[in-house]
């Protein structure tokens, strides 16, 4: 972000008028809004995907009524939470009760500052990136205990206490695994860690050495414990303490906890991707030059006659659907169906959605035709800026998927067993890995 501010100040006279502080504030505002929107969207989509996955693993369909394939469900859920009555228990500690969700949300949103979405897409590439993440993760604990205590409910108190013990304990193996990564990359900055894994998939820290693979396992398990997911969701154990520290919260306050949990899933997956899976790097391609070359090549290919064929391939389903729609229209008209909702629109919403997808693909490809000469440049830009972002997103989604998957497969651990796993298994193995990795680095460089 500092680079962006400097660049803007240099290039555009408008920002020079506003001054450096003004520009910085403006850029901060824009970045904050973008990231918070992303956080909200990702949180919502993850809740939707969790419900769909929950349905599928239980041999049933997930939500499929609200939009095409149920995709609008998370919007409906959010709207419902906003519209609900905000109940504060009479004997609760009002100020702490109201403040706790904000602390928990703060812990999650602060982590987004150092998440590297792309080679230059990071709000602030702090040179203590991972250390900052470990620090902000601790806000959540304070929030949870505050929520548990302020609810004036013994069950929430139990949940809050358990979660405090759990999160604080699991920060140690978390830190150990991250320490190992820092050892291997030599820097704590997130972009630095990613760049240290350059050169192909075998350079990813996941595959570098058996110790780092173990470190990934330790990191993953302690991350799942940090975000209170099964098998470590004792603080919100549904069948024992109905929602634990969440019991007394309703409406958007509960929505804040909920969004924070799912945002945390994404943050934790993003950190795992950064540290162990090479971040935004694609398996075969290096950084800017490689990407640029591939991009230019793709652009030149698409500037040729191939694009016409691709447009026709993408447009064919559209044409097919349009033909089907017209036949359906005629069928409806013959039977004198009601006019509202419009005869033409009374189509299957999933069908409309698919038609929209194919139509946008065809339109996208059709736009290549007038821009034939500029395509190599455009594709270079796309490959250099957009593709790493997509790669990062896909990898983080895959790891989030595993975290969601665990929820529907495993039972939960009892609180003392949870602590046992942390102190008796993860921490000793973490230390062994750390020492072993040091030896490995000495031997194999």
């Amino acid at each position, binding site marked *: 972000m500092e680079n962006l501010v400097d660049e803007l100040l240099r290039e555009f006279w408008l920002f020079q008028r506003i001054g450096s502080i003004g520009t910085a504030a403006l850029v901060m505002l824009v970045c904050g809004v973008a990231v918070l929107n992303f956080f909200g969207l990702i949180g919502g989509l993850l809740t939707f995907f969790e419900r769909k996955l929950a349905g599928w693993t239980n041999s049933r369909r997930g939500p499929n009524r609200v939009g095409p394939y149920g995709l609008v469900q998370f919007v409906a859920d959010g709207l419902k939470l906003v519209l609900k009555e905000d109940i504060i228990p009479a004997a609760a500690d009002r100020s702490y009760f109201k403040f706790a969700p904000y602390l928990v949300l703060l812990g999650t949103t602060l982590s987004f500052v150092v998440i590297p979405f792309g080679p230059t897409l990071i709000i602030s590439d702090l040179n203590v990136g991972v250390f900052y993440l470990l620090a902000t993760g601790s806000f959540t604990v304070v929030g949870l205990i505050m929520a548990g205590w302020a609810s004036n409910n*013994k069950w929430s108190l*139990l949940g809050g206490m358990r979660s405090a013990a759990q999160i604080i304990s699991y920060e140690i193996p978390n830190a150990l695994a991250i320490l190992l990564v820092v050892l291997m990359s030599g820097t704590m900055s997130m972009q630095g860690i990613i760049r240290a894994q350059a050169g192909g998939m075998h350079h990813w820290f996941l595959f570098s050495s058996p110790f780092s693979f173990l470190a990934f396992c330790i990191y993953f398990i302690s991350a799942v414990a940090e975000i209170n997911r099964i098998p470590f969701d004792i603080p919100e154990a549904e069948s024992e303490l109905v929602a634990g520290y969440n019991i007394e919260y309703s409406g958007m306050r509960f929505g804040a906890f909920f969004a924070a949990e799912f945002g945390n899933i994404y943050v934790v997956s993003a950190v795992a991707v950064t540290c162990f899976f090479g971040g935004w790097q694609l398996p075969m391609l290096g950084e800017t030059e490689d990407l640029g070359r591939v991009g230019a090549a793709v652009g030149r290919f698409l500037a040729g006659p191939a694009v016409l064929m691709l447009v026709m391939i993408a447009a064919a389903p559209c044409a097919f659907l349009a033909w089907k729609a017209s036949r359906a229209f005629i069928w409806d008209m013959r039977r004198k169906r009601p006019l509202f909702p419009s005869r033409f629109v009374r189509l299957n919403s999933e069908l409309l959605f698919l038609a929209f997808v194919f139509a946008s693909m065809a339109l996208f490809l059709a736009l290549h035709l007038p821009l034939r000469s500029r395509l190599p440049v455009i594709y270079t830009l796309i490959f250099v800026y957009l593709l790493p972002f997509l790669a990062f997103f896909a990898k983080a989604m895959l790891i989030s998927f595993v975290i969601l998957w665990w929820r529907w497969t495993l039972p939960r651990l009892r609180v003392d067993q949870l602590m046992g796993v942390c102190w008796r298994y993860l921490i000793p193995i973490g230390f062994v890995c750390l020492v072993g990795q040091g030896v490995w680095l000495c031997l194999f460089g």
Partner: protein
Amino acid sequence: MPLATEEMILNMGPHHPSTHGVLRFILRTDGEVIYRCRPDVGFLHRGLEKIAEMVTYPQFMPYTDRIDYLAAMNCNLGYAITVERLGGIEVPPRAEYVRVMVAELNRIISHLISVGTFALDIGAVTPFTHALREREWVNDLFEELCGARLTYHYFRFGGVAFDLPDGFLDRVTRFLDYFEPRLAQFNRLISTNKIFKERLVGVGVISAEEALGYALVGPNLRASGIDWDLRRDEPYAVYADLEFEVPVGSPEFGEVGDCYNRFWVRIREMEQSARIVRQCIARMPEGSHWNRSKKKLKLPPGEMYVRTEAPRGELGYYLISRGEDRPYRLKIRTGSFSAMSIVEKLASGIMVADLVALIASLDVIAPEIDR
């Protein structure tokens, strides 16, 4: 100097996701470890035994469904046998085999819910829904057999209400062929899961003497090592002609008498019930399904106590008749009621999470406790 801590009185109230029905436990804990747990029952008391004194014998049959609605066929069976023994009513052989077949199918689905909710209380959601998915098959079968999916009211004095529809036995066989591999898959999913074992092995151990002393019955008793099953030791209906094993708790599945053994006894019982159903299908005789008499039923004066092996243990009906068309007194003895008595003894010194596992392993169901 030791830290002074306060005791907390927690109310695991009637509304709780993991007490099986409306049960209340008043816990005195120090946060996690329970000092004393007092069960408070009676929230689902509907006065069934009093109702029995006011309605006639056939009219009480639907009420027996509601004693243990997950195993309604077995409750019906016990009551039907009691009245038939006291009244000297004959049951045709086809009806006897149909009775055993549906009772064992009902045992399968009752145990499915039992192990499913057990896994749910331990935190795994998927085994619960998988168990319910298997249960839906049998619900469909019962729906086409007698018209209801939960409270069947299928048994009558002298037989069963409806004859088997066409192709029913083939569909039952198809269900069993589908079910046995699914049970094996269920075991791979949760029963052998390390986390599940960690939660249950060695928890809530009930020794054999304790089990007998607190009058536990059914799978709870067998898991503590006592080899007693009414179907084999005091046979009724056609159980004497059928071959099946009685699973007893063994050290192979954790400690004898702990929650894990109780879980596994139910799983193995499901396998044995499938075996019994297959034998019933193979031997199903032809004939009438209901020895129906047109006369109003009046039992001779006397007493009769009949106990049958319901999925939750021994279900006993003690009937006192004064020669009228309705009972003078009907006392129902259920297995869940005795299981509640042992919770207080076992609960001191364990954690809240273990208490949840313990209650789930005893497979109590509130309507059986309170009637």
